[in-house]
């Protein structure tokens, strides 16, 4: 039977039960929670004999198999001890809270949170799997957040809850990182494996970072200096929560974790330095600050911090006997501190205040409660015959015992004694100022004893303090031995639990602490004055909120710098970052910029072309505000590029570039009509400079990359096509053969897209009329003579010539530079010239108005070529060619690809015309004039 998963699961099941049971009256929730807790306790006791017999129980459920994670639970002595504390004190707190909470508080919510917390806490102490432990760890942070903020109306409670969640949650994440590292070091996340791999872990190079991360988790949770500040703030929680979470359980989770990992992590200088050092500092500072708190719960919170530091110190000392003392003090602290918190809750409840400056002389009004609190406080101070004395004396003995092992070792007993002095002093202050010291000041109503049953949990705990303090060997010994053996992962050492050990240094230290404490309290006035002057200047909580506010300010400051900026800035950032990444790649690559190959030597023609291109581009930048000039200069750049193509033996590309350039120029000019002749001025020299630098760097970068690539040997894919063009496609012009044959399918797709784009533009422009500017910047109107007759006549003469050229280019395309695409552009330009020179109405009367047909025919012809091949049993678009003898002309090659090229030609002509004509028709000017500019029809 799976008992351990049941132990963890039951409280989680109890949580919704508690919420639901409120329907049956206000007290349904405590009864349900108490019942569930009792059942859980019984289930746990059912399997408790295993640890007592020296066995470790492990039970696992499949969970995350592929990642090597199971839901695994483990019960050994240490786990059992903590689980008993959690359930036992949990039961008392459930009982107590029923009386503590007021009628208007929602009990269902409180008990739901409490049960969730209890389940998470049990999950921590019973986890066999480290990741699972962290999961439950974070869950306790969350539930404690809910519990601290239980009184949601209070701003203070909400702030405190957030702070504790941030601190402990952050620590939990650090712990997660540490646990992941630990798991990777061992190769398993199972505690059994990790505990067995102590030597391997301690020798690992990651030991120190891993230890630091784990300690961050433990210190934040257990409120160690300098992360202690959340605990006093968390006193805004209802007192049962403080009694449960902030004395007995949650704050002990950090201690538990270190105890759990004690066999793996301890016994190194780093461990004793860090754990012992921070423990000692916390022990001393906590005790010191506790003395000056006027709020009872504040005093108890700092006292808790101090005692947690004491336990940490013991773990840090690291001897087996110190471990015994640590476990013993965990038990003792849980009992006396929980009872003290409950007593403080009673006082708060019945007297209406927790301020020791107001609460005086309560002995008269609530003697029974006062007696209980005084016993518990005596135990807290370490007075003989109470349980706190025993474990504290063990600490003193250990402090003396290890002092010889280190430099400045003598400081340890001294500091420990000083801390003990303060502990006595604040306990004394708590007793004296609360219960004696005259009469209460300014209380709203007269204090009185609480309901009888509210005191029962306190009585039980105080009784435990006494019994353990007087008869330790008979009461606590068995569970202590089991707990210690669980901690040490081996048998417990020899130790004696007697009250009287004879005259020893430890006894002397105890006496000194008691006497010193009384002395400090008696002459406390100067100390209080000093504390008043310091005014909490060094309180860590201030640093927390300062860091918190600083982060907010920082975020606000970083925000406008990069958030919601203009498009220009964004492009600048994008391009700049891209350039930096590229540059970093270059610098990181470590290879030289230039490769081995020697570039082609420079000749005058290339140089001239290059300079011409640079001059044209530069001039375009300088004159960019004059739009017409810059468009023409861009045309010149295009022309230079066409010449470069020709220079490097790519006449086909040159021709294409040339015709595309003309069409683009016309397109730009048509668009320019709607814009002012001059572009807007830039914002200023700084921006011009910036843009200039960016552009220069971009050009430099691209130039360098080109240089790097061109100076390296590379293979070209051209050879294959050069070889295959004639035998495979029957053409000498490789470019054209690729277009219409090898990659005919691509070309078919391209012309389809071209036609679609033409149609899309047509649909957008069809009924669009825009008024262009009527006057230029100097106030001059347009030339009334829109179609000069000379130009119109000349253009008409040119038309047949241009069409002949285009036909010639089309036909020779398969063998010599040319082809359907270029021919189409030439035709289109020739026709558009007619529109420009003769006007729309004249030209439209003579040319087919519907160009869709031409485009459609082109697509049909091209597709048809492919389909014919299919009809003849070849795959789509398979081409063929043959040679025919024509009379007069001679041998002529006819390829089926020519028909395909015709399709390309038609689509290009149709689309180009369609787009340009309709862009022109948007102009108001295109519609005003009619008739023949040359005269006649």
């Amino acid at each position: 039977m799976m008992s351990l998963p049941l132990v963890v699961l039951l409280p989680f099941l109890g949580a919704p039960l508690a919420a639901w049971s409120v329907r049956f009256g206000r007290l349904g929730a405590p009864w349900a929670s108490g019942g569930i807790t009792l059942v859980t306790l019984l289930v746990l006791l059912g399997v408790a004999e295993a640890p007592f017999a020296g066995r470790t129980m492990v039970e696992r459920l499949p969970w995350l198999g592929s990642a090597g994670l199971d839901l695994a639970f483990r019960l050994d002595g240490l786990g059992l001890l903590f689980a008993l504390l959690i359930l036992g004190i949990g039961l008392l707190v459930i009982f107590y809270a029923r009386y503590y909470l007021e009628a208007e508080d929602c009990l269902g919510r409180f008990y739901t949170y409490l049960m969730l917390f209890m389940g998470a806490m049990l999950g921590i102490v019973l986890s066999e799997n480290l990741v699972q432990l962290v999961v439950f760890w974070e869950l306790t942070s969350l539930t404690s957040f809910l519990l601290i903020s239980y009184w949601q109306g209070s701003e203070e409670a909400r702030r405190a809850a957030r702070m504790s969640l941030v601190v402990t949650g952050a620590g939990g994440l650090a712990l997660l990182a540490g646990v992941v590292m630990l798991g990777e070091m061992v190769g398993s996340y199972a505690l059994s494996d990790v505990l067995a791999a102590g030597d391997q872990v301690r020798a690992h190079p990651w030991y120190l970072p891993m230890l630091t991360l784990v300690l961050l988790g433990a210190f934040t949770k257990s409120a160690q200096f300098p992360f202690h500040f959340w605990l006093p703030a968390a006193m805004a929680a209802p007192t049962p929560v403080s009694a449960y979470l902030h004395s007995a359980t949650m704050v002990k989770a950090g201690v538990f974790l270190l105890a759990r990992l004690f066999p793996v992590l301890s016994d190194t200088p780093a461990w004793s330095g860090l754990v012992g050092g921070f423990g000692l500092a916390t022990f001393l500072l906590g005790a010191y600050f506790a003395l000056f708190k006027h709020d009872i719960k504040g005093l108890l919170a700092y006292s808790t911090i101090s005692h947690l530091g004491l336990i940490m110190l013991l773990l840090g000392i690291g001897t087996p006997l110190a471990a015994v003392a640590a476990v013993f003090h965990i038990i003792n602290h849980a009992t006396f501190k929980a009872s003290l918190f409950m007593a403080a809750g009673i006082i708060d409840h019945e007297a209406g205040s927790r301020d020791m400056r107001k609460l005086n002389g309560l002995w008269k009004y609530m003697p029974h409660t006062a007696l209980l609190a005084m016993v518990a406080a005596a135990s807290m101070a370490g007075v003989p015959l109470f349980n706190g004395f025993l474990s504290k004396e063990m600490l003193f003995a250990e402090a003396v015992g290890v002092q010889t092992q280190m430099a400045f070792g003598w400081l340890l007993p001294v500091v420990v004694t000083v801390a003990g002095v303060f502990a006595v002093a604040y306990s004394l202050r708590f007793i004296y100022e609360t219960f004696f010291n005259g009469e209460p000041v300014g209380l709203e109503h007269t204090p009185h004893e609480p309901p009888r049953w509210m005191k029962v949990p306190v009585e039980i705990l105080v009784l435990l303090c006494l019994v353990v303090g007087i008869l330790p060997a008979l009461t606590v010994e068995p569970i202590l031995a089991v707990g210690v053996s669980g901690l040490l992962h081996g048998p417990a050492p020899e130790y004696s639990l007697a009250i009287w050990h004879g005259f020893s240094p430890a006894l002397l230290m105890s006496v000194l602490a008691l006497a010193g404490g009384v002395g400090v309290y008696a002459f406390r006035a100067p100390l209080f004055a000093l504390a008043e002057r310091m005014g909490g200047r060094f309180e860590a909580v201030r640093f927390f909120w300062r860091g918190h506010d600083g982060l907010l300010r920082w975020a606000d400051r970083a925000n406008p710098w990069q958030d919601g900026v203009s498009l220009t800035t964004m492009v600048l950032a994008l391009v700049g970052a891209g350039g930096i990444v590229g540059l970093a790649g270059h610098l990181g690559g470590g290879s030289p910029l230039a490769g081995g190959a020697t570039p082609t030597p420079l000749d005058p023609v290339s140089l001239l072309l290059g300079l011409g291109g640079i001059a044209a581009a530069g001039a375009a930048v300088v004159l960019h505000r004059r739009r017409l000039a810059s468009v023409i200069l861009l045309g010149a750049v295009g022309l230079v590029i066409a010449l470069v193509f020709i220079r490097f033996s790519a006449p086909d590309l040159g021709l294409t570039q040339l015709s595309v350039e003309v069409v683009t120029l016309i397109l730009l000019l048509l668009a320019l009509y709607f814009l002012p002749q001059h572009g807007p001025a830039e914002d200023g020299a700084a921006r011009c400079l910036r843009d200039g630098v960016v552009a220069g760097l971009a050009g430099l970068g691209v130039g360098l990359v080109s240089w790097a690539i061109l100076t390296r040997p590379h293979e070209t894919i051209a050879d294959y096509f050069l070889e295959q063009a004639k035998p495979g496609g029957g053409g000498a012009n490789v470019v054209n053969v690729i277009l219409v044959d090898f990659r005919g399918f691509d070309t078919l797709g391209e012309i389809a897209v071209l036609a679609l784009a033409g149609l899309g533009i047509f649909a957008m422009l069809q009924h669009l009329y825009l008024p262009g500017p009527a006057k230029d910047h100097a106030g001059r109107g347009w030339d009334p003579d829109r179609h000069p007759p000379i130009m119109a006549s000349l253009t008409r003469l040119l038309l047949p010539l241009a069409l002949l050229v285009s036909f010639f280019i089309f036909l020779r395309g398969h063998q010599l530079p040319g082809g359907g695409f270029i021919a189409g552009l030439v035709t289109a330009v020739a026709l558009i010239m007619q529109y420009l020179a003769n006007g729309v109405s004249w030209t439209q009367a003579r040319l087919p108005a519907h160009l869709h047909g031409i485009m459609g025919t082109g697509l049909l012809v091209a597709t048809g070529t492919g389909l014919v091949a299919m009809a003849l049993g070849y795959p789509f678009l398979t081409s063929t060619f043959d040679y025919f003898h024509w009379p007069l002309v001679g041998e002529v090659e006819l390829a089926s690809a020519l028909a395909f090229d015709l399709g390309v030609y038609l689509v290009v002509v149709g689309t180009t015309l369609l787009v340009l004509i309709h862009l022109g028709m948007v102009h108001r000017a295109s519609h005003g004039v009619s008739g023949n500019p040359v005269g006649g029809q």
Partner: protein
Amino acid sequence: MTMEMPNLVPVLPEIVVLAMTCLILVVDLFLRDDQRDVTYLLTQATLVVAFALTWALGDDQVRLTLFGSVVNDPLSDVLKLFIYLLTFMTFVFARPYMKERGLHTGEYYVLGLLGVLGMMVMVSSYSMLLMYLGLELLSLSLYALVSLNRDSTRCSEAAMKYLVLGAVASGMLLYGMSLIYGLTGSLNVIEISHAIVRDGADLPMVVAVAFVVVGLAFKLGAVPFHMWLPDVYEGAPTAITAYLSAAPKLAGFALFVRLLAEGLGPVTAEWQQMLMVLAVLSLFLGNVVAIAQTSFKRMLAYSTISHIGFVLLGLLAGTNDGYSAALFYVVAYALMSLGGFATILYLARRGTEAESLDDLRGLNDRNPFAAFTVLILMFSMAGIPFTLGFWAKLAVLRALVQVDFVWLAVFAVVMSVIGAFYYLRVLKMVYFDKPVETAPLARGLDFRLVFGANGLAILGLGLYPAGLVALCAGAINV
């Protein structure tokens, strides 16, 4: 020349989506405005059919088709299934919102489906050409979607920024790809990898890798290529932001794996360092600046940036564990992000966008169900245990520690702590503050069901993540 007919079975889902998109486009023309739900139903049906097809065709085999340019492997199957699922959920969330704003048009669904097609192509492509085509199909759909609300200047500004920057980034990606093609002589991922092993990587290859990384990082929104993201997230109608934030990140992740891990695997050391810088910056900036936001949408945008940092951390580990951790993370992120934007869609009404953080105040008093879902979402985003986000972070951290990037893991943890801060601030508003607005939330049953399922998935997968972990581990085989 002749060519063989390729095996088209592996691309059947793509063909179905394409055909259905065309069909829906035509059908939508003949519908009246009040019949637009037919378009919606057809769209959802298409996604369901594609899901079923991918599911039925999926197995452990790696199949190449279309001359080795398309791959069908467990990774593509897993990603496609999640893409359908997320898009399906997005459309459910979007419908009432778009109706209220008069944006419930056929274009939304058609563009959405085209985007899905683009993502499918990206996920399955083994050729740089196809990758680019898929990416552009997706991007163009997104540009159009972002500008769907043409009357809003904020929307237009966002679309303009997105378009221009996206074009620049695409240009950089293409530049890098063309350099790689020139250097290796191949567009095919496998052949590129072989060519690099054979010839070694020289300076131009490093530069090429840099530009490819820049292009891909922009699409995911990694710092310093992130600036478009908050503006676009805030500017676009929320239903479109939801679409934009979820599934496309999965496709972007696929490109990283296909191109960087599989194709440029031999130069892992080069891109690893670049991703490291991007990841560190993303984690830092995303988390810190998110704190300063007052708009919930912008906060989620910066949260996206920080999550992308985590995804990059997983990727840069360069191991199978790292890739599967990143896959796990990106899936988890997509679910969380969609849930976040769905919350805004839940709160929005006619005339109220509800995209400010203040609109979340007192949500618990207005609708405990929505408040609880927000609680799960925020916990998950913060990486708090027993939610999906925790396991995602854990997987990435483990992958990092395995390859000795301990300092990166610690840095990521520190940044998560800062991140937790603003997620918890949202919860504080939801649970502790008094509501400004008291109107009840009114959404249909389908919305509430899917919204609840989204939250439950994050909680359920958080409680029992084994299935998803196994799925992600099985999908990666680089």
